[in-house]
């Protein structure tokens, strides 16, 4: 089972929630799909880590065949091929790997080669498998890395927690592709609420059962509680805005491993998620 943890706004606590859920649940697998800024490994510090490069295809032009017709350049919406000094030149970092230039080339002068996009690291932390994608700086899209990460966990029987990218764009949509449930981590600020609403729309459009966890909850406002009530979304729990939690977290410590009380609280959150998953599967029971 895959449980995606997402939030819309960055910095609301996706990594905090998904790392601690993973650590609290027996044999759970943690996947950091926020490949642009992965930070789950700062907490898990896995052992026996294996790294694999993820490549994507970019065009290479055979100058002996190219007659400088520029059809490839005209085709490319991303301007990844330019006519420079009597030859066509490829800008791999602009290329979106669509393969279109190869199709439109009348001289069959274009083939494709591998271009490093990033990597996937996998290791173990106690009983937990932990995986993380890393996008190379200057690359446009980490989606192929997210797809590879999901392939690596699609067959496991263990619960998988996906630490998703922020926002509600393509990388997030890709991350939740196979998710059985979406946990929306909400921060009780106006900005947090705004982005929560966007990611809630996403969960609805993708037909994903979902519920909310409030992080950094304070008693001085009920922004998220009111939103849940208004939209009829289940509130799974509240994690308080607490100096000690923040301090442990900023030291790279896993709260569920530091305190048995917190381990129990995260386990309880997991059981509530399971209840929601089974309710979504059989709404009449």
């Amino acid at each position, binding site marked *: 089972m895959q449980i995606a943890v997402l939030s819309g706004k960055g910095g609301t606590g996706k990594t905090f929630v998904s790392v601690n859920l993973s650590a609290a649940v027996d044999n759970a697998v943690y996947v950091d799909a926020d490949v642009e800024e992965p930070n789950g490994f700062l907490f898990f510090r896995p052992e026996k880590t294996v790294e694999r490069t993820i490549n994507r295809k970019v065009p290479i032009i055979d100058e002996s065949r190219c007659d400088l017709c520029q059809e490839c350049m005209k085709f490319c*919406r991303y*301007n990844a091929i330019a006519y420079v000094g009597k030859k066509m030149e490829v800008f791999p970092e*602009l290329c979106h790997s669509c393969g279109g230039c190869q199709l439109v080339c009348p001289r069959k002068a274009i083939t494709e080669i591998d271009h490093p996009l990033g990597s996937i690291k996998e290791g173990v932390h106690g009983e937990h498998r932990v995986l993380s994608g890393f996008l190379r700086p200057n690359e*446009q899209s980490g989606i192929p890395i997210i797809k590879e990460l999901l392939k690596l966990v699609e067959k496991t029987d263990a619960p998988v927690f996906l630490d998703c990218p922020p926002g509600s764009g393509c990388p997030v949509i890709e991350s939740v592709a196979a998710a059985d449930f979406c946990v929306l981590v909400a921060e009780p600020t106006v900005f947090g609420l705004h982005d929560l609403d966007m990611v809630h729309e996403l969960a609805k459009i993708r037909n994903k059962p979902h519920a909310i966890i409030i992080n950094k909850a304070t008693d001085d406002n009920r922004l998220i509680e009111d939103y849940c009530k208004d939209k009829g979304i289940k509130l799974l729990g509240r994690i308080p805005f607490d100096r000690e939690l923040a301090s442990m977290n900023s030291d790279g410590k896993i709260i569920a491993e530091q305190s048995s009380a917190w381990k129990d609280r995260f386990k309880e959150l997991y059981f509530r998620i399971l209840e929601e998953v089974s309710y979504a599967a059989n709404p009449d029971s």
Partner: protein
Amino acid sequence: MIIALPADQKRQDAMVNGQFGRARYFCIYDTDDQSYQFIDNPAISAPGGAGVRSASELANLGVRSVVAYHVGDNALRVLQRNGISIYRPQSATIEANASAFAKGQLVKLV
């Protein structure tokens, strides 16, 4: 010699635009007959590679030098491969820089 300057408006007294690849317009100035021509930047709404696109367009128009505050890495590569030099603007407006270029008063960056 034909030179290009990124421009805010299609006017000689317009400001030199701070951007290159996503400048709204380009002023094409011919030092031989002191003529000004303004074109829309075809890359203004490109989903990516705006610098590459605008630099290629200028190269196709026979531009030999560019006067701009900032040119991105990709645009720089296309300009350099086409043998186009880059000069730093000295004053705010298009026409002041065009005439300073013609008099050889601008500093060549690359």
